[in-house]
């Protein structure tokens, strides 16, 4: 029988790793993701989980250890936060290019300077062009579910890509929420044992990561691009399967909340979606025609889903919890992708970035009300005044 428990996001991620029967884990401490490794270390020490637990000497080493382990045919997990994610940056491209589908559990954290512990999505968002599957969870349950879903998607032989399963630091990683833990047999049915097509094996020796010629470089890039192109179909299949087996109701890429009759929406990923839902409910009660659209995967970016859904509205406020200094829209990263997705639509909504939740700041209800007012005024005026608003620091 599935059972309901109360877990933090970190504990939920650790539980998911246990259910996935992870075989090699490599840790290095950095808050807030550390709590995932603390839980896993306990499980390994207690004999609950039969896995090799390796202490890395830094994040670059962590990624290298799991790269080797997963290349040798073990289901592997590592993770990090903030500057730890960026310290390992060199390894992201070879792992994706080598088509080794390991998983990284990330509880996000602001990058320096100078040393901010708070949640911010810039760390993992900065890796988005390396060929990793990337997405955020809103609550501990989704962190748990995404871990299993991502292993299954990444290990599919049509995909074979590594995955970053992200949750917002503290807001998800350290605030307990209800998590339904399934039966082990259900997970075993959903997630077959890991099988790499060409594992490192002394009986059938293969070379991973050899030097290639410059004229082979494009072909390697093209293979990785093709794998990313093939991923959305697999994600749709896997989410269907997950929903059926575990009684969930996930949209594969883009979830709509109270969008019936909505003129404007918040477009958001991660923990702050929960506050945004409350804001939408309260605003709806007052007659404001607003809804919420939540993104579940940044990579592969669901261009068609975003275009089809967002083109129905008059205004879209993209809540950005990451920075893109000097970018085309002068704000965060998501607006670039949103506007590019909408470009070919005959009807395009007004759009803007709302910079909110940076450095670990909360995004309280009053901020969402203010954003709604900005969008509402833009609809009346038929024009969005600016492409970016730093919420709380600017007049409309």
């Amino acid at each position, binding site marked *: 029988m599935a059972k309901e428990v109360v877990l933090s996001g970190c504990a939920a991620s650790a539980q998911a790793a246990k259910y996935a029967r992870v075989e090699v884990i490599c840790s290095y401490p950095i808050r807030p993701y550390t709590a995932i490794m603390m839980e896993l270390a306990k499980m390994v020490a207690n004999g609950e989980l039969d896995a090799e637990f390796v202490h890395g000497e830094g994040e670059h080493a962590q990624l290298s250890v799991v790269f080797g382990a997963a290349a040798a045919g073990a289901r592997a997990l590592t993770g990090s936060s903030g500057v730890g994610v960026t310290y390992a940056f060199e390894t992201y491209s070879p792992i994706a290019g080598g088509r080794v589908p390991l998983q990284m559990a990330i509880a996000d954290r602001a990058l320096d300077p100078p040393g901010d512990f708070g949640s911010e999505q810039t760390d993992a968002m900065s890796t988005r062009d390396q060929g990793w599957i990337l997405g955020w969870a809103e609550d501990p349950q989704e962190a748990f579910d995404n871990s299993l879903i991502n292993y299954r998607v990444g290990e599919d032989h049509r995909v074979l890509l590594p995955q970053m399963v992200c949750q917002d630091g503290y807001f998800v990683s350290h605030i307990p929420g209800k998590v339904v833990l399934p039966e082990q047999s259900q997970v075993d049915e959903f997630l077959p044992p890991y099988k790499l*097509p060409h594992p490192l094996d002394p009986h059938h020796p293969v070379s*991973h*990561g050899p030097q290639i010629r410059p*004229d*082979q470089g494009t*072909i390697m890039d093209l293979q990785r691009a093709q794998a990313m192109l093939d991923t959305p179909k697999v994600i749709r299949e896997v989410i269907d399967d997950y929903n059926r087996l575990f009684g969930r109701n996930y949209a594969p890429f883009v979830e709509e909340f109270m969008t019936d009759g909505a003129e404007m929406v918040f477009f958001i990923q991660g923990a702050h979606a929960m506050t945004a839902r409350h804001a939408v409910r309260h605003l709806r009660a007052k007659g404001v025609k607003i809804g919420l659209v939540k993104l579940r995967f940044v990579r592969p970016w669901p261009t068609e889903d975003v275009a089809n859904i967002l083109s129905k509205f008059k205004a879209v406020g993209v809540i950005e919890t990451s920075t893109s200094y000097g970018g085309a829209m002068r704000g965060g990263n998501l607006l670039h992708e949103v506007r590019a997705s909408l470009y070919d639509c005959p009807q395009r909504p007004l759009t803007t970035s709302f910079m909110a939740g940076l450095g670990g700041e909360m995004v309280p209800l009053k901020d969402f009300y203010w954003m709604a007012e900005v969008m509402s005024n833009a609809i009346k005026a038929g024009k969005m005044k600016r492409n970016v608003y730093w919420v709380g620091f600017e007049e409309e």
Partner: protein
Amino acid sequence: MFNIPKDKEVPLGCITPAPVTEQPMMITGNWREYRPVIDNEKCNLCMSCIVYCPDACWQLNEAEDEPVWNAKYCKGCLICVNECTSGALSKAYELDFADGVVRLEKPF
């Protein structure tokens, strides 16, 4: 699907059977500043050089029972010299040119 000419195909993730055929276009031996030199009298066949070489430039010649060095691809990292358990490996300076410059016929 993309059209990739037959002669340009690359295996998935560039994972190839080992040991791979040498690639004439990507010779790395000319990156070397020092080369490892083996004294076969001292070698105790511990295989450390063969195991540790990141580029498989030490292979065992089973007929002669001795490690064989690949001058064409050894980059001169000298990990083998460092790991050698018997003192059979030492290093020798490679840049014996009058002006100290390595000359390459081709960039790769």
